[in-house]
């Protein structure tokens, strides 16, 4: 029960997913129709993967940095984010 | 006649009869909170239900009791609670929830003298209008009022039938005298009274809409845990059960609540008449008061006064058409109630122009005496 010890729920992952611009699929899918631009994913992503668009919704700006740590999709209150790695 | 076990004549108390009627109708869940003069119903249920595999729970209050029977009915049970005035008032919010979510359930109100704590061990018929208008918002109510121990049984069965048939809460308006009175009666045998159960869906779960529009306006009803997953809410909702703000859907939903009852009120109306064929003075009375009125009508007949009795058993929906027809040619109608005048307003609406509407009311916790009524018949005739 690691999270009980630290109060933190996610350990930084060691694995780094390789993603290269123009190659393969992006690490995440965003169903932005449901997104309300709350900024949680953007602020909480430890790898700074997202940038906000004009409306404040996330753009996967640095896909190659994503570690699939799950923080963004676990916190997103609107079920916007799904992962492409299964 | 070979008597089956049930058909033995025996001394039964009114509240016991209500309880037995519920079991006869297949009630398998009861939630309640004790209150005089209804408590014997809960006590009987506590004793009987576990024997029949059903469940009884004494809740922390009447609000909880009403909530629990709605929840249990949503989950497929046939459910009932019993209370008296103060508890009935507390149940109103959740009764409204049962109206809008169209959940069948039965509420027995063994009326005592009110308002407020009032006269806990005395009779009243003062919750008649409350049974119609007690909760906020628009809806149409069904209530029945027994007048004998046998009817406490029968009308509880009917209440379940109406409730299941129309997917709506039904109130049984009993009273303290009826509830505590004992009569030697023969209880109906199994099969003697038809039992109606809610229509279950026959479509696949994906197609099921909990509030589907149907020709008779009553939607087939699945229970929780039966493979049909659906949503119920006290917000105005669409046929699927989801909240809606579409004025058209809202109008349809609320109209359905009314029309499913109003359009079929002939199925609901139960009315008993005594010597109305040649009557020129009609007495209208229900529940315990009707028994005194019946005696009074007989006394009047002895004196060659052409009195008759109209006894609504179904109080809501009110028997408008039937009573209007019965009052044709009647000179005086005397409405006898154990309150300050409640259904007299309905009769007033229905009375033909030449028909005098009089009333006789008692609200001190005692039953009207036949002699009192007889005297009043003499006065107004």
């Amino acid at each position: 029960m690691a999270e009980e010890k630290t109060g933190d729920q996610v350990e930084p992952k060691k694995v780094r997913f390789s993603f290269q611009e123009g190659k393969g699929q992006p690490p995440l899918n965003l169903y932005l129709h449901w997104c309300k631009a709350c900024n949680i994913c953007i602020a909480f992503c430890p790898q700074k993967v997202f940038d906000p668009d004009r409306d404040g919704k996330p753009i996967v700006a640095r896909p190659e940095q994503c570690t699939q740590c799950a923080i963004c999709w676990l916190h997103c209150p609107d079920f916007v984010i799904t992962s492409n790695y299964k | 006649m070979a008597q089956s076990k049930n058909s033995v004549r025996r001394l039964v108390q009114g509240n016991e009869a209500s309880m037995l009627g519920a079991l006869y109708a297949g009630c398998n869940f009861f939630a309640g909170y004790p209150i005089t003069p209804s408590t014997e119903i809960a006590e009987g249920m506590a004793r009987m239900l576990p024997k029949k595999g059903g469940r009884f729970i004494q809740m922390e209050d009447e609000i909880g009791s009403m909530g629990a029977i709605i929840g249990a009915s949503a989950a497929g049970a046939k459910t009932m609670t019993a209370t008296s005035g103060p508890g009935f008032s507390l149940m109103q919010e959740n009764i409204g929830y049962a109206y809008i979510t169209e959940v069948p359930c039965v509420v027995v109100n063994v009326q005592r003298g009110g308002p407020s704590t009032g006269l806990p061990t005395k009779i009243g018929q003062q919750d008649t209008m409350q049974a119609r208008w007690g909760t906020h918002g628009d809806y149409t109510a069904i209530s029945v009022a027994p007048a004998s121990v046998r009817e406490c049984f029968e009308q509880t069965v009917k209440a379940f039938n109406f409730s299941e048939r129309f997917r709506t809460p039904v109130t049984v308006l009993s009273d303290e005298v009826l509830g505590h009175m004992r009569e030697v009666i023969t209880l109906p045998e199994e099969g003697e009274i038809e039992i109606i159960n809610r229509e279950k869906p026959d479509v696949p779960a994906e197609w099921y809409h909990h509030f589907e529009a149907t020709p008779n306006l009553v939607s087939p009803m699945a229970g929780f845990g039966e493979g049909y997953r659906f949503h119920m809410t006290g917000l105005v909702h669409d046929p699927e059960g989801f909240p809606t703000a579409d004025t058209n859907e809202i109008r349809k939903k609320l109209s359905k609540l009314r029309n499913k009852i109003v359009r079929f009120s002939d199925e609901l109306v139960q009315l008993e008449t005594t010597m109305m064929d040649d009557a020129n003075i009609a007495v209208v009375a229900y529940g315990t008061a009707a028994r005194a009125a019946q005696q009074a009508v007989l006394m009047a007949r002895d004196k060659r006064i052409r009195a008759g009795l109209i006894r609504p058993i179904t109080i809501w929906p009110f028997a408008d058409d039937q009573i209007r027809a019965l009052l044709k040619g009647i000179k005086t109608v005397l409405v006898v109630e154990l309150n300050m005048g409640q259904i007299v307003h309905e009769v007033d609406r229905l009375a033909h122009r030449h028909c005098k509407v009089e009333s006789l009311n008692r609200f001190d916790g005692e039953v009207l005496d036949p002699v009192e009524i007889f005297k009043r018949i003499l006065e107004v005739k």
Partner: protein
Amino acid sequence: MPATVQPSDVAYNYLRVKKNFPNVWCAGCGIGTVMGSIIRAIDKLGYSKNDIALVSGIGCSSRLPVYCDFNTLHTTHGRAIAFATGVKLAKPHMKVIVITGDGDGLAIGGNHFIHACRRNIDITTILINNHIYGMTGGQCSPTTAHDKKATTAPYGNLENTFDVAQLAQAAGASFVSRSTVYHVQQMDKLIGLALEKKGFSLFEAISNCHTYYGRLNKEGDAVSMIQDMKKIALPIKAAKVLPPEKTKGKLLTGVLWDVEKPEFCSEYQKLIDNFKDEREKNNA
């Protein structure tokens, strides 16, 4: 992908995606996050959707069930537990889960809450505590801290608060746990434990209402409120080995209480079975 990381799309198997979305909650409201946890916990336990009932009262938090593809019952304000009691007794094999808020579950619904605890009826209650009435626009709730502001406490709240966990325990619940919308994986796990507990189990989810509570009390937006949760939370296991001055003002999280005691539905089943046995004996 590491095995411990939750898949991101299980939720879609449980959402009523065709209607009702996007959900009604404000941008960043933690209720949606709690919903994710509930779904993942249920998925992990492998329960059948048909056997789950989600019962709620009225409030932002009580809107949760409408989005989930279970048997869902959105009742009257404060009464969810009473309705759930009926559901449970009519279908004892079902998992009955109450979703409620601090106002719904503890203000108007406080009585049903303590009595369900006392009865120890096998219902899991997930109380989403945002310390305010969100739905009606920011009034004081029984968990609004002393001196904090609310629209009905414009000069600061004069009242004291419930410690929900302590109240549930004193009233008789057999399982009490707590976490926050910051600690999502802890939430997933604690909800799972609560669901598996036979008896009345409580999971209190500390959530953010930045729209009202945050604005009135200058606690910032969703992100900052959620980040504050990280600072204040302290796992009970850690707290147990700390000196009292270090735990003061902290929000204890984890399993706070877990005991065995007679559960209402099982007790009732025994009664029914007794009569059945008796009948069978008499018939034999």
